[in-house]
């Protein structure tokens, strides 16, 4: 095990003010090693996505400690170094791309913001890397399928050559055959670039496929931690995890 690229201690995230304050995350501790793929599982409302959003600076109200590659974070502001190191891919590729920007513009803008040079060549390479090819460069999002859009979103995340990707249900809006393609792409990219993943999903089989370790969240806290061998064998000390495994097997004949 190498040093953790991400460590989270006693993370609490809330929305609103008393008396309407909602505590979405109630004291979460996490450590993700460099090169690892770590999964967060739970139902909607369990706080799993909120953990990612707090790390990315999208949830301003939080307390606790978040460290990324030794850099301690605070509030919602993130340094340029952070944005280069950490990128996020969202669930809905229909909502996460600007409808009136071409793929070229989306990537060029990101590359410029990341302070990259040689933008033209990099766009071509990014498209190749995510398996899209040059023909897609000047298309608008509505001319792309869901899987192609998610590839663009992944290309955008890769633009700054990050070390850590925060993946928020990256395949749950896609058909199963397209999900397989995107999961394979994520597997290849991690192998080629030595990326670290922190992935959120409600689908245990997807987490089991892509991750080595996982944590199960419920009502804002982590109720269980296990590695993928335990998951596959259904070995868990927590009733809730066993319930989730059983529920996901209900889908499988």
């Amino acid at each position: 095990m190498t040093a953790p690229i991400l460590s989270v201690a006693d993370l609490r995230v809330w929305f609103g003010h008393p008396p309407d304050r909602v505590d979405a995350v109630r004291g979460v501790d996490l450590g993700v090693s460099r090169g690892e793929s770590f999964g967060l599982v739970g139902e909607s409302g369990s706080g799993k996505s909120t953990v990612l959003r707090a790390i990315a600076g999208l949830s301003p109200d939080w307390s606790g400690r978040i460290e990324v590659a030794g850099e301690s974070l605070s509030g919602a502001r993130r340094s340029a170094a952070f944005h280069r190191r950490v990128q996020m891919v969202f669930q809905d590729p229909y909502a996460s791309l600007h409808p009136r920007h071409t793929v070229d513009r989306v990537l060029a803008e990101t590359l410029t913001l990341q302070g990259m040079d040689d933008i033209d060549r990099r766009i071509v390479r990014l498209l190749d890397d995510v398996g899209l090819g040059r023909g897609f460069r000047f298309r608008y999002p509505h001319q792309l399928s869901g899987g192609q859009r998610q590839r663009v979103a992944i290309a955008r995340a890769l633009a700054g050559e990050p070390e850590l990707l925060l993946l928020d249900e990256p395949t749950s809006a896609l058909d199963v055959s397209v999900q397989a393609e995107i999961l394979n792409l994520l597997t290849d990219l991690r192998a080629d670039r030595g990326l670290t993943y922190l992935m959120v999903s409600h689908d245990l089989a997807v987490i089991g496929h892509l991750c080595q370790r996982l944590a199960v969240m419920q009502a804002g806290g982590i109720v269980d931690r296990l590695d993928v061998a335990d998951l596959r064998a259904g070995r868990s000390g927590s009733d809730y995890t066993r319930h989730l495994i059983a529920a996901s097997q209900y889908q499988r004949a």
Partner: protein
Amino acid sequence: MSALLSVRDLRVSFPSRQGMFEAVRGVSFDLGRERLGVVGESGSGKSMTGRAILGLVRPPGQVAAQALTLGGQDILNLPERERRRIRGRRIAMVMQDPKFSLNPVMRVGDQIVEAYRLHSGAGRAAARLKALEMLEAVRIRDPERVFQSYPHEVSGGMGQRIMIAMMLAAGPEILIADEPTSALDVSVRAEVLRIMDDLVRDRGMGLIFISHDLNLVAQFCDRVLIMYAGRIVETLAARDLHSARHPYTQGLLNSLPRLDAPVDRLPVLERAEAWRDGPLVDASMTEALPGGLR
């Protein structure tokens, strides 16, 4: 036993710049008192099939069929007025996301009451009792409270139960459920399915369950139709799904990650052009009805 619903050579087409685009290209099947799964990916025409049966394809879309009969009566060429009398009363539909199916500015209970009165002509008080009874039937613990609530105040799983309650209040013969659990959490999903299953079974209804999730359908339905590019490429008893013969069905099954069978890379579905118009695995798609509900 005769078919509740009989569909022959159903076609749905839309004009496009490249000429007519056929979203559904000759679908035939019979529905008995059974749970029939319709599986396919986005764009396979599965939802359009459901909408065409209900008469919900809007112009310029066109629906054609050799036959579309409900209990032996032709429903394809009915005037819109007559069609409306069938929709909701004899064939009901539950859609994917309750957030978009419920009126956001009307109390949940009032919506059920309105739908029920429209179909049954019942009085206000009777409709209210019926609504509460239906909310209880979908295992909502505190029906009075939910009756008074607005859609944004209920969870997704609760919203879908409310939709099922509303749809089943009029006592339809057929329920078309279009991805009814895709917007729900895994744990809530099982509960909603169980409720739907019980209701369909108790009332002897026919259920058309449209979904992209093969395994869910295999678990839940009696019989499965696999759609690809607007056609039914294969029909199977649900328990035989894993011995599917069509390469498309096999490809879909293989592309799912499985906890019990880890692989480094998932097999990717290679689509063959021949599937669009090639021979169908089961030519006798419309043969005798299966024995109804188990």
